[in-house]
């Protein structure tokens, strides 16, 4: 996949965006972390080099799901058996919203369509947002240094996305409720096989139990994400 440069230019006020999304909308309807996509971005990349740990389809779909989950957390959309319903049509103006507006205006209601469409720019969106916040640093990589990677500026912060899942899961302790959404995304994209690679046997089954604890609306999104990632494995077109 081609990772273009951070699109900070099109999103000049990320801090403001964060504050806005907190202020506008109803009270959060579920305990979804405000920056779930950032957490998933950290989890999906090497904590030092920023090398992606997931194949592009799973990574971009996972980020798209994280962004949609953030919108759900902000009370703007909800998921209902494969469909997206808009609960608050007056959201803040940011780059993600222009995508959402297009989906709404053109009458798309299926979660799979939303995931696929948001996935086309989710990587740039999240990487750009994190660069603006100083969480990652764009770097050249690969042959001829033409590729682009986003290395975490603080590896410890990046590693925490893994540790908060792998530590309790490895000792079969229930996850913190706030970590269930991230765990759900990690599970649905297949990233758990990396996160739990040194964990004892049976950890994956325990993770699946933990994922069941997510609220039903989020489960709905996660099921569609898992199906989308699976279909991408079955039918790779890129």
């Amino acid at each position, binding site marked *: 996949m081609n990772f273009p440069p951070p699109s900070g230019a099109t999103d000049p006020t990320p801090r403001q965006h964060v504050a806005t999304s907190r202020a506008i909308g109803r009270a959060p309807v579920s305990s979804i972390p405000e920056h779930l996509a950032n957490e998933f971005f950290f989890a999906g990349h090497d904590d030092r080099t920023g090398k992606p740990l997931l*194949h592009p389809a799973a990574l971009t779909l996972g980020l798209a799901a994280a962004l949609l989950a953030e919108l759900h957390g902000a009370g703007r959309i909800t998921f209902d058996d494969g469909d997206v319903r808009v609960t608050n049509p007056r959201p803040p103006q940011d780059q993600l919203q222009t995508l959402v507006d297009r989906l709404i205006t053109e*009458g798309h209601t299926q979660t799979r369509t939303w995931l696929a469409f948001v996935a*086309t720019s989710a990587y740039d969106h999240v990487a750009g947002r994190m660069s603006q916040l100083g969480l990652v640093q764009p770097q050249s990589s690969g042959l001829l240094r033409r590729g682009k990677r986003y290395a975490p500026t603080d590896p410890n912060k990046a590693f925490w996305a893994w540790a908060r899942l792998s530590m309790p899961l490895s000792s079969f302790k229930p996850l913190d409720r706030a970590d269930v959404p991230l765990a759900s995304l990690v599970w649905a994209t297949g990233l758990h096989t990396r996160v739990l690679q040194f964990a004892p046997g049976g950890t994956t089954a325990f993770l699946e139990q933990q994922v069941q604890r997510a609220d039903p609306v989020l489960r709905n999104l*996660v099921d569609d994400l898992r199906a989308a990632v699976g279909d991408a494995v*079955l*039918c790779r*077109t890129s």
Partner: protein
Amino acid sequence: MSHAASDTVSGALARNRLGAVAVMFIVLAAAAPLTVVGAGVAIAFAVLGVIGIPVAYLVVAVVLAVFAVGFVAMSRRIVNAGAFYTYVTHGLGRPAGVAAAMVALLAYSAMQCALYGGVGLILASFVGGPFPWWAYALLVWMLIAVLGQLRVDVNGRILAVLLLAEITILIIYNAVMLTHPADGQISFAALSPSHIVTAGSGAALVAAITGFVGFEGTVVFAEESKDPRRTVARATYAALTVTGVLYALSAWAMTVATGPDNIVEAARSTDTDLIFALVAPHVAPIFVTVGLTLIITSLIAAVGAFHNTLTRYGYALGRERVLPAMFQRTNTTTGAPYVSSLAQSGLALCVIIVVAMVSDDPMLHLFFWGATTGGAGVLILMTVTSYAVVSFFARHRREETLWRARIAPVIASIVLTGILAAALADFDVLLGVAPDSPLRWVFPGAYGVAALVGVVWAMVLRATKPDIYATIGRGANVDTHRTASPSPVTQPV
């Protein structure tokens, strides 16, 4: 769902998706036209001993096109549309679906193993040297196994260039053969429709179907094509037309070059080199070398395509937990379903080794028996699938036309059943064994056993794991409680 003409979302999503030409190239690579003509046709003449092979290809192309009408229409309505067993599950129930899955695994495995044998044998005769065929087969096996693990797909453009080169060289060969007829005049004897009702026609039809296996892969892209309503249908019919015409033309040209009465004898004396032996006296040696090289690349592409098909089946069945859950494991960084890929690489390795140890004629025992048995398995799958399409549309006709939902599927069911019955009656001819040989029952019987295993396993799942039983046929969509296709976004016209 209807979308306005200014549907930018659909446009953006369609940009990364495949058009009809791209889909056609992908499935034609699996069909490996030069291999079918270079090796399949010659060996079919030799083993079956009939001259009606060209007309069999034409008949099969038409039958498969009629089958494809309902098949493609149904592919738009279901999830996991890339696998025959999904159609059977929706149309005829879950036990039949699992039975179809087992038959499919066996049929495609037979096909893949046959191609490993074919590529080994052709490489051995082309390169020569001290190594036996199985050494070359293992070399290709290693290449495919590694590519499957890394999920390195051969670039679509390379496949397209190779395919176009194959077609070009076949057209040149055909021109050479038709301009050098045996008795100084072109004979149309091999194209006489009377051949399809003569003895051995069932075997000839199965041998012909074998050449088309892979065309059904278009529906894998039902959800990933630019325009699901048209792309898959166009690609399917285009693939059937290109291969049907090419196979029939080439097989007929061979009978012209040898004279219709001599084709069987010529095929028996030259084996897979028939087409090259026929053109060699009339063209520069480079044309033969290029043809032999392309036959090898086409075989490698085909074996890779069957590897992918089997890997997909294993992964989807693992997702549903019909096969052990480990089959759904993927490599995180490449997305390769590595367990499914490894499992069938292991199986193919065993088959190559066993055949190398016991067989004195691997061209017949591995390549031809494997390919025709695989073709017969795919014929069984298509027959059952056509019943499933009829049954499905009896309940969910919705906005499909009468032709797509009823007439074509019913015709396909009847004709495919007839071909299947003729094939079973002719299986001794198909294998080239004596009429009283037990082998004529062993090969088709293996599919019966596979189907029985599938039905029993489905029953066990229903009794012990009803939640798994409920999700059979959903592939990657096991968690979404959805069986209908998520009506993929269509591209604005």
